[in-house]
Each structure stands twice: as C-alpha cells, then as structure tokens.
C-alpha cells in the first residue's frame, strides 16, 4: 500500500467525511488548535526565559519546570489531536504542502532539542537549579526552542494560505431570527463574498 493510497483512505474515512460535511466542526478544530497551541508556546516560553535568566529567576529551575511542563504536555496533546483531525479532511493536500512538511520538521527539531537538553544541561540541573541562568548548553536550547516554536506558528499559518479546504457540503447556515438587530447594518449588495475564502 503506497502513501497516496493511505492518504486517500484517510480522507475517505467516516471521521474525515463528517468533519468535511459540517459547517462548524472545522472552524472549531482550528480554534481549539490555536487555543491549545497558544498554551504550548505560552507555557514553554516561561521555561525558556527561566533558562535564559530573563524571568522567574528567583524560582529554582526544577520547580518552574515541574510546575508548568504538565500544562505544556496537556496542551500539546490537544494540539496534536485537533491538528490530526484537520489533517484527515484533506490528507493528500496537506501531505504535499511545503509549509505542512516544514511544520512537521520543526516539530521533530523541537523534540530533538528537548533530547539535547536532557543530554546536556538537564544532566547537571542540581548544580545550577538555583542559579540565575542555565549553563551555555541550556541557554542555547532555550533560544532554539523559542525559534522553533515561533517558527511552527508561522509555518502553520502559511498552511492555511497555501492549501484550499476540501469542499464542504453546501449546508445552508441556520437562519437566526434576530434580523431586526441588524436593521442598521449596511443594506444592499456589495462586493462581499457570501462564502469567505476559508482557512485564511
């Protein structure tokens, strides 16, 4: 079974089909993906800034790490699940997309960077736990971590601009019966597309 067939099979699963066919699920997956990813970057940055001696310097490194990394992992899991679900809807397009591939490479690099930390500064934590900054290896890892995770955001955002969404079933939006609320809204036709270009 070659990769193209696997990708087609993923797209054809009931799960992928039902996400595609819903007007709401994909935008909600995107939103949760952003929320969870924001927490990944927001929490990991606290650790990186602690390693660099920029913030939280009065707290021992190990305490900051054990206090915060659990949230990073929970958020990362949620990011991976929502990302995976979005991938299923249009697997072969994402698979061939340059920015999607870049993002996966960046995730791999983030993992290797964590491994590098464990093998270097992580081994001697007891020596610098209370110090203001981590040893050089720890600070290098911290800078790389910030660059990689911020790079992941850029790659992720560019995916939305370089892929087209798989077509959604032409489901009419619910007609909310509060039209009078928007009586003052600009009337008359315009250049506004009824269906905005998705993903962007």
């Amino acid at each position: 079974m070659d990769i193209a067939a696997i990708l087609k099979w993923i797209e054809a699963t009931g799960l992928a089909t039902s996400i595609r066919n819903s007007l709401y699920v994909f935008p909600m997956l995107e939103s949760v993906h952003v929320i969870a990813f924001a927490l990944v970057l927001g929490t990991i940055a606290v650790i990186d800034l602690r390693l660099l001696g920029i913030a939280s310097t009065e707290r021992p490194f190990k305490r900051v790490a054990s206090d915060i990394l659990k949230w990073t992992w929970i958020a990362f899991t949620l990011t991976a699940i929502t990302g995976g679900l979005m991938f299923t809807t249009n697997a072969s397009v994402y698979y061939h997309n340059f920015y999607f591939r870049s993002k996966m490479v960046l995730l791999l690099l983030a993992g290797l960077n964590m491994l590098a930390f464990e093998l270097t500064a992580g081994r001697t934590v007891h020596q610098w736990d209370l110090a203001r900054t981590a040893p050089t290896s720890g600070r290098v890892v911290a800078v790389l971590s910030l660059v990689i995770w911020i790079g992941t955001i850029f790659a992720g955002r560019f995916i939305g601009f370089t892929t087209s969404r798989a077509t959604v079933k032409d489901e009419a939006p619910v007609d909310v019966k509060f039209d009078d609320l928007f009586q003052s809204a600009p009337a008359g036709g315009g250049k506004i597309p009824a269906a905005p270009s998705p993903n962007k």
Partner: protein
Amino acid sequence: MKQFAEWLSTTFPSVFIQNHNSWAIPVIQSIHIVGIAIVLGSVFLIDVRILGWSGRDQTLRQTTNRFGPWLTGSLWMLLLTGVLMVIGEPVRELVTFSFWLKMFLVAVGALIAIIFLRAVRKHEQRWEDGILQRGTVKSLAVITFLLWASIIILGRLIAYDHIWGSWSPAAVK
C-alpha cells in the same frame, strides 16, 4: 461601516498590504498569534495560581508581577498587529459579526485584567489573606480563561462569518 471599510481599502497603507498580501497577511497574523500565546499563557498561569493548581510556591502578587506586564504588553502588540490586519483587509474584518463581538469581549477582558492587576497591587495582603480563597474569585479565574478562549474562537470565525447566518452583516442582501 461598509462604506468606511471600502474607503479604507483604497488608502495607501491598505493598498500596500494588499499588494504584498501573499506574505504580509500571514506574517502579520503569525505575529498576532505569538501575541495571543503570550496573553493566553499569562492569563492561564495567573488563573491556575488563583485556583491553586500551579505556582503555589509563589504569592499571588509574585505571580501577577511575573505575568501581568507580559499580559498587558502583549495586548498592545495584539492591538498593533490587529490594526494592521484591519487596514490590510478592511471589508473582510469590519463587515463581520465575529469581529465586533470579539472587540466587545476584548474590551471586557482587558478591563477585567487592568482592574484585577491594580487591585492585587493595591491590596496585596488582603488578597493573600482571604480574597484569593473566595469562590467568586475562583469562578472569575475560570470565566476569564473562557473569555479569552472565546475571543480566540471569534478571531478564527472572522474567516467563517457566514456561519452566523443572518447575524452576519455580510449576509444582508
């Protein structure tokens, strides 16, 4: 508003962004998301401290001193990148229900943050001694997190404003 948006889209800064939209818009959006990460991360870590789930070796004041400036600083960065996005795509942003509901919630969220940070600064001891333990304060911690999460959802929904049906001004025929 639509007339204003259409006028704005003819101004020089808007035309400039439109002419470079293949990279300018995603780059501005990415910087905006970095700002979102700092705001949401800061709100979250202050909220879990209030709930007693994390950071218990720190007083509330120490926690707000650590994250408060990042929270407010990033809000300015979000305002700047947000304004650039509106200038770059005025009709797409301004003629939506999601955008205006988002702006209202941002105003509420920012106001709560400013009042809270000021209150903790002014009455540090009273917060440590009792206010922090109140159920209402704990619920407020949960509510503020949900508020910022809703703001992020609405930000994403600007691209999907048609899901609001007739609430979306773009749907008015």
